[in-house]
């Protein structure tokens, strides 16, 4: 209990928000780090949500920095406990992307598409509206927990800082809905929904890969293991995993 009347920067009480356990930090390394700690050391339940006003290290896929000013961002992370095999865990990247797109669309009223693997973008301008990350923790042969991190650009969404609460509510609702869909219908349903909304499909893309090299082709599918399938003009198909992708450009 804080006896001085102010919320300590690096601790937070667990409350409830939109029916889920909730912690709000004025300052933290990242929403993801706080949610991971909750999930791993305190057995944070499905849906446990962390909101951070000021992230010190807002990093996404491969450590990519979120450069939108903090005052114009919403940063939150949600603990998921999907019943998936270790091989199916990557589908949670698709769940995150889809949830971000659904929330962004609900808030902005504009058409929003997923942009493999970690973004939701305006369907017309391709401006990045949200970046996501799925940190997957494996147990013996299965997924133990996933921390789904979301960062939204509130200005580009058209709601500004005042829209933070509504965006949080929208993303929590989207995650809950999609988690239910994943549990009921399995990874293929989520992959199909993601694919349907993916703005990248049909485009000629060039990817630089980890640890080195590059590849190009037409993006034709997203698999249930979250791999982007590229097809060459002569029909060669390459499957690129989320962890392999360093940069992606439409050419």
């Amino acid at each position, binding site marked *: 209990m804080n006896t001085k009347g102010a919320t300590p920067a690096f601790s937070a009480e667990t409350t409830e928000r939109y029916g889920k356990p909730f912690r709000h930090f004025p300052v933290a390394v990242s929403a993801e780090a706080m949610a991971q700690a909750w999930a791993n050391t305190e057995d944070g339940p499905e849906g446990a949500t962390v909101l951070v006003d000021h992230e010190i290290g807002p990093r996404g896929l491969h450590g990519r920095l979120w450069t939108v000013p903090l005052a114009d961002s919403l940063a939150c992370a949600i603990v998921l406990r999907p019943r998936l095999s270790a091989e199916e865990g990557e589908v949670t990247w698709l769940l995150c992307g889809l949830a971000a797109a659904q929330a962004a669309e609900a808030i902005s009223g504009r058409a929003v598409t997923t942009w493999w693997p970690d973004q939701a973008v305006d369907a017309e301008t391709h401006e990045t509206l949200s970046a996501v990350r799925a940190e997957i923790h494996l147990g013996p042969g299965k997924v133990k927990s996933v921390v789904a991190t979301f960062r939204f650009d509130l200005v580009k969404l058209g709601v500004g800082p005042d829209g933070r609460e509504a965006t949080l509510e929208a993303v929590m609702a989207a995650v809950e809905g999609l988690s239910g869909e994943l549990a009921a219908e399995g990874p293929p349903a989520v992959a199909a929904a993601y694919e349907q909304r993916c703005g990248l499909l049909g485009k000629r893309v060039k990817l630089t890969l980890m640890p080195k090299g*590059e590849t*190009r*082709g037409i993006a034709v599918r997203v698999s249930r293991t979250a791999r982007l399938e590229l097809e060459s003009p002569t029909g*060669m198909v390459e499957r690129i995993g989320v962890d392999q992708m360093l940069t992606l450009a439409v050419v």
Partner: protein
Amino acid sequence: MGAAVSDMDGAPTGSNELGPPEQAVREFVTAIAWGEHRTVWRLFGDEARSTVLKVASKRGMEDDLVARLRDGTASEDEYDEFLADLISGLRADLAGNDLDALEYETDTVPPAPDQARVVLNVPLPFPLEGSLPMGSVELTVQDGGWRVVRLVPQVTK
């Protein structure tokens, strides 16, 4: 199974006219970059195909499959898998270079009659000027067109 992949044994892309060697190399590099596996195989000359299959055999490919690939009687799936590996190897040879910015320069003196050598140059980043060679492609005339004999990446000596 066993369906011949006829287009793989045809003439090089375009007409049978012998164009500039650098044009053939540009097509070859573009095909590698875009994963046009059948185009790459079509641009390979007999010697290059033979070399690639020997390497595959040494690395454990079954002799029957090697023979089918050599004779053009392998199935589509077999070709696709084999050529996907080939593309990966060729991409590894070219890795680290901006393939869109390559400059192609044909040696003025050919190594032998009906042969050519095209040097692949990478422009130096600003503020440096000029370019550096990152490799070369040796070509030979076959079936009225330029075919690749080998890709020689520049490596540290």
